[in-house]
């Protein structure tokens, strides 16, 4: 099997599953309980928070645990908007955000907020100039993703952070779900105020995510109740999945240190090979993209059919992002990059992890060529 859909979800590391099982069975207490078992669970939670904070170069009390990336994005965007609406009602984001950012923005528009969706260039990148042009006195939030989930383009987050340093009333949110452990980012240096991460994209488990909330930022709660997570997020903490996430993050960052050069080689090899297939148009900008996402369009072949054809050969890829893979709408990222409808409707995404190898490539490429050949005959 060759699994090339790591941006949809990753396979949890075996050690991560082990630590989940251990915590779930042995340390099942509720961290809010005052007895021994509760305090043990609380200690595990604190440790996980400290480990994650250290790995990210931030303070433990700046780490808020959520149920995943979608919750963290909704919380960040609506939390800022509702908390700071007295300051202004303008929000800036891009045309290529994940739906868990763009849809809350649309919801806010219905509530009377004004949202600017910045365009991107042909490489799928928003420029600092565009952000600067859009900024107003009443801009309360700028939300820009780090790495785009469909094509892998890297956004100039540090430069935008430097620009926003001159706008102290504007809060800067970054969706780092695809970037974490693949593309380094110094959150303090980039002056990020809020940052989203999700465990299942770095070999952790579904059901745990992180919102980094810089000290001093207030957010209107999305989930009200018992006041867990320093009053930011109520609900009994998913301690086993959180402990497992801390482990997954540590392991993923270690893999980055040891294997990033290899992953870049794998990416290069994929590009080289894909370029030899005439009916493929590569959408991912090689130079300005993350090491793990390669998007291409297939001239005249339905992408779902291609996915199924490859699956028969035990190779797993996806049609753009998993969340929208059932819709037959053109990819909004590709459209924003200037692709025509046909190209934007036929996007295929390969997404790698540190587990993928150079050896897989010839097999996968051969299978892709076969699949293309077969589907061409069918449509001919």
């Amino acid at each position, binding site marked *: 099997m060759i699994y090339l859909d790591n941006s949809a979800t990753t*396979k949890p590391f075996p050690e991560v599953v082990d630590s989940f099982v251990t915590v779930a069975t042995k340390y099942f207490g509720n961290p*809010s309980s005052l007895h021994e078992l509760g305090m043990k669970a609380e200690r595990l939670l604190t440790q996980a928070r400290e480990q994650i904070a250290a790995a990210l170069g931030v303070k433990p009390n700046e780490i808020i645990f959520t149920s995943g990336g*979608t919750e963290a994005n909704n919380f960040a965007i609506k939390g800022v908007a509702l908390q700071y609406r007295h300051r202004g009602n303008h929000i800036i984001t891009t045309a290529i955000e994940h739906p*868990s950012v763009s849809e809350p923005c649309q919801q806010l528009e219905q509530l009377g907020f004004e949202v600017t969706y910045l365009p991107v260039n042909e490489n799928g990148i928003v420029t600092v100039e565009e952000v600067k042009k859009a900024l107003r006195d009443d801009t309360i939030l700028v939300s820009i993703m780090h790495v785009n989930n469909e094509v892998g383009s890297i956004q100039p987050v540090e430069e935008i952070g430097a620009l926003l340093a001159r706008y102290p009333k504007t809060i800067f949110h970054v969706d780092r779900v695809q970037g974490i452990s693949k593309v380094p980012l110094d959150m303090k240096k980039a002056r990020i105020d809020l940052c989203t991460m999700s465990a299942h994209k770095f070999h952790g488990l579904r059901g745990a995510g992180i919102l980094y909330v810089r000290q001093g930022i207030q957010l209107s709660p999305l989930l*009200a109740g018992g006041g867990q997570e320093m009053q930011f997020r109520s*609900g*009994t903490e998913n301690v086993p999945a959180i402990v497992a996430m801390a482990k997954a993050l540590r392991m993923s960052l270690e893999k980055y240190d040891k294997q990033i050069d290899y992953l870049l080689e794998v990416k290069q090899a994929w590009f080289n090979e894909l370029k030899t297939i005439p009916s493929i148009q590569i959408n991912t900008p090689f130079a300005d993209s993350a090491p793990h996402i390669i998007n291409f369009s297939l001239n005249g072949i339905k992408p779902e059919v291609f996915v199924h054809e490859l*699956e028969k050969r035990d190779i797993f890829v996806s049609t753009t992002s998993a969340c929208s893979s059932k819709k037959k709408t053109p990819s909004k990222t590709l459209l924003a990059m200037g692709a025509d409808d046909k190209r934007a409707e036929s996007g295929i995404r390969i997404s790698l992890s540190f587990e993928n190898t150079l050896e897989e490539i010839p097999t996968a490429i051969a299978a892709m060529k076969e699949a293309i050949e077969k589907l061409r005959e069918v449509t001919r």
Partner: protein
Amino acid sequence: MNRIYLDHAATSPVHPDVVKCMIPLMSEVFGNPSSIHFFGRQSRQAVDEARAVVAASLGAKESEIIFTSGGTEADNIALIGTAMANRHRGRHIITSMIEHHAVLRACQYLEKQGFEVTYLPVDEQGNVSPADVKAALRDDTILVSIMFANNEVGVLQPIREIGELLKDHQAYFHTDAVQAYGLVPIRVNDYHIDLLSVSAHKINGPKGIGALYARETVKLSPLFYGGEQERKRRAGTENVAGIVGFAKAVEIAQETMSDKQQEYRLLRETMLSIFAESGISYAVNGSEDRCLPHIVNVAFPGTNVESMLVNLDLAGIAASSGSACTAGSIDPSHVLVAMFGKKSERIRSSVRFSFGLGNTKEQIAKAATETVKIVKRLTTK
């Protein structure tokens, strides 16, 4: 020391079969249910099967089950989601003073958004009165939220009567069944329930997963926007292993329900008869005829709850002051205050014991005996 865990209402140990069935979904069938390939389809199927189990346990349709990250999220969607989607029909909400904070804080949030909330009182037994609900109902009431059973004193609320009363009113009927689910039979249609919250970790399932039942006809606006998961009512990549573990816990709970009821009643009697024989003074909080079998909330006059809990913990017994969810602090319980008033001594001297998986009669006898010793020590001057 052999510890005795009597805090199952705060959270419960995961059933071994639950963990077992989750492991393959983490290490093998790890796909994203939205992916159209094999891994995705397998995960999707696992989620569909789990949904059928949860739906059947409530007598609901599969399409009426929304998986959430837990009870708190389910309560928040039930309150905030329906209020926001139905504000054109009215702005009045009815709830009770003894709800879990997930409901009460969501109500406070709604008050800030311009909704009006009536908080119904309870009697000394911890019962909400259907007559009070009726009296509070207005033409512009859009939602009534009354918990199925209280988490601190275990009192079962008159859900059937309230459901009957609301049958012909526009207001939706939400019930927080987080504590009752799995211990008493619940049929949403018999009780005319429109929305109902449950949480897996209270029934020996995993943490981080729960569900909201929302009747087909209920309009609600999501809290999480994004992907199209859960029929667009709750975005976010599905926690497949959690969902499957939850469904397993539901299956086990349904199968063992009547055994558990008997077993916990016996444990309850064992505990209370030791208290009775010991000569200490004590009083059970909450109606004893209409209560969940596994929750016993007892006042020990002359003691104070902090020192009771510390001493119990030292003796290896894990109990609680009521809601664990009031993160970390022992504020006087809002439930006991609603029952007995702010000045009552009971609100400072009550301990909640809650039974569950793994507890034996011997354990309860030992815990009760230790409790008696501690009470005697703390009350002799």
